[in-house]
């Protein structure tokens, strides 16, 4: 990866962070909620992008990993356990189950893996719905507590927004680190040519397991932050539909591209809101937009970014062979 590319990304991230810090003061409560939700979804999308976009492993159970985070925080919170501990436990649970799902990934490929992960999502959903003593069954858990450090409480929407932002920054920084490390190269090698990757010493087992586990851990993190945002969780939030929603985010944004999950989370969260004024037609317009985007921009919205980059590059130095930024 040309060093300039990732340095540019670092700068862009810093700018985005600054924007995220400054913007909320201008937003009303509902818009603040949408922004908080977008941040949470971005965390989840980054995880799925790692598993699917970078390592090429199909995962249709991202919502299930999210559920581990949400329910850990909610259930433990009911017993007075501090939020951060619930979060760590949720993330660890998600990581562990991500490892478990990673094993079938070693044995089967592509469509089989899609089916296995889909099945896992269904199983987790059914367990959540039926294990009433633990999860509250269909009724879910309400009054999920927001974090508090002694007298400092993050209960207000604005305070909780900044709390989410802080964790999001941690997640993004760690993803940046991982993807620019040798792990990133190994993941991409597996995605590009699995057989050759193994022949040059890339342990498929190790990296595929990690792709699943780390992606799942991020999902767990997102889930943990999600629960107090809504204040209430039920199994209906962790169905296959939700996993598909994350899939859409990652593909619409741009698979295997660092910017992809941010763009995807933004579009999938904000677009329905923007269209909400159109009186019930908004889902139809949204669906049409999705179909059209896939027809004309299958690589995702980062395609637009690429176009801009390429045309600006050709202005600066027409002879450079443009290595596509990854």
């Amino acid at each position, binding site marked *: 990866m040309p060093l300039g590319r990732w340095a540019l990304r670092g700068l862009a991230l810093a700018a985005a962070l600054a924007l995220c810090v400054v913007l909320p003061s201008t937003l009303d409560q509902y818009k603040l909620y949408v922004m908080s939700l977008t941040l949470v979804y971005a965390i989840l999308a980054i995880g799925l992008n790692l598993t699917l976009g970078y390592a090429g492993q199909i995962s249709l159970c991202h919502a299930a990993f999210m559920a581990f985070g949400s329910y850990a925080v909610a259930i433990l919170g009911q017993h007075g356990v501090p939020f951060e501990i619930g979060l760590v436990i949720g993330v660890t649970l998600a990581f562990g189950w991500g490892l478990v799902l990673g094993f079938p990934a070693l044995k089967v490929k592509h*469509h089989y893996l899609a089916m296995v992960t889909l099945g896992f999502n269904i*199983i987790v959903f059914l367990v959540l*719905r039926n294990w009433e003593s633990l999860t509250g069954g269909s009724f879910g858990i309400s009054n999920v507590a927001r974090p508090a450090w002694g007298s400092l409480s993050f209960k207000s929407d604005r305070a909780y927004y900044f709390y989410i932002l802080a964790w999001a920054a941690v997640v993004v920084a760690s993803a940046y680190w991982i993807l620019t490390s040798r792990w990133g190269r190994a993941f991409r090698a597996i995605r590009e040519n699995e057989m050759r990757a193994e022949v040059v010493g890339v342990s498929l087992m190790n990296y595929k397991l990690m792709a699943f586990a780390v992606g799942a851990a991020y999902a767990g993190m997102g889930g943990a932050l999600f629960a107090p945002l809504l204040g209430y969780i039920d199994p209906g939030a962790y169905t296959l539909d939700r996993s598909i929603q994350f899939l859409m985010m990652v593909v619409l944004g741009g698979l295997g591209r660092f910017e992809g999950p941010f763009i995807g989370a933004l579009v999938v969260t904000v677009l329905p809101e923007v269209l909400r004024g159109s009186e019930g037609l908004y889902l139809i317009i949204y669906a049409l937009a999705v179909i059209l985007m896939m027809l004309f921009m299958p690589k995702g919205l980062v395609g637009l970014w690429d176009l801009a980059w390429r045309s600006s590059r050709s202005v600066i130095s027409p002879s450079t062979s443009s290595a596509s930024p990854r």
Partner: protein
Amino acid sequence: MTDFVQLCVAGVSIGAIYAMAAIGFVLLWQTSNTINFAQGEFVVLPAFAMVLFFVIFRFPFAVAMVATVLVSTLLLGFGVKELLVTRLLKMGVLPLVIATIGLSLLIRYSLQQFWTPLALPFPAIFSRDPIRLGTIVVSLEELGNILFAAATIGALQVFITHTKLGWAMQAVAQNRTLASVLGINVGRLVTITFMLNAALTAIAAILIAPVYLVKYDIGVSLGLKAFYAAIIGGFNQIRGALLGGLLVGVVETLSAAYISSHFRDAFALVILIAVLLLKPEGIWGVKEEWA
């Protein structure tokens, strides 16, 4: 005991309908690597069409049925394939998957918005009168569904194993590159498969309309059941999808009768875990040698 058998018959009856949706799903996967997330809506749309032709326009039943199958084959078979699939197939599996998700949303919410969010009743095709077979009582409807579905699936099986076109489909399903080298027009074959799928889902819709009510959102659970059936039955064989569909129907019916609502899903869960752990390619599925 008679209760159990009666329930099984009811289960097979609804299962046969699920099986048709599952078989279509599997056919699409086999010939074109399409995971059709809109399969449930492919049943809902013809169901609404049936309401249009039979209830609103008052066509005779047979005419309405033919019209529904034709409309479905044209729109959801030919139309979807030519407008969406042809272009997207070249770009890999995922863009097509997302597009079918978009399509399912489009159909679902268009029906809700432009037709009605309410459930539409649909008159029973076969009478619900009971028939006595020995000690067992079943309804004509249940028998009718089973026979109709069996006839359809049987015809499909004959088509696939005894016609040139059917063999071509099998060839494409097993090895697309080789098939095209041998002179098979793969693109056209995929179109035919899509049309077949649309016909199957249309027939499923006709049979299921009296059982479920016709509502814009029944596609969600129908689609899910088709996937589930394909997963546990085996999604690279038609008989796998058939088995899966029947299993789903029977398990669903038995669970509703015998298991209290709390644990109703447990049985389905157990089957799913067992299949995924022991035979992830499905009960009657076949392990593929190379990905």
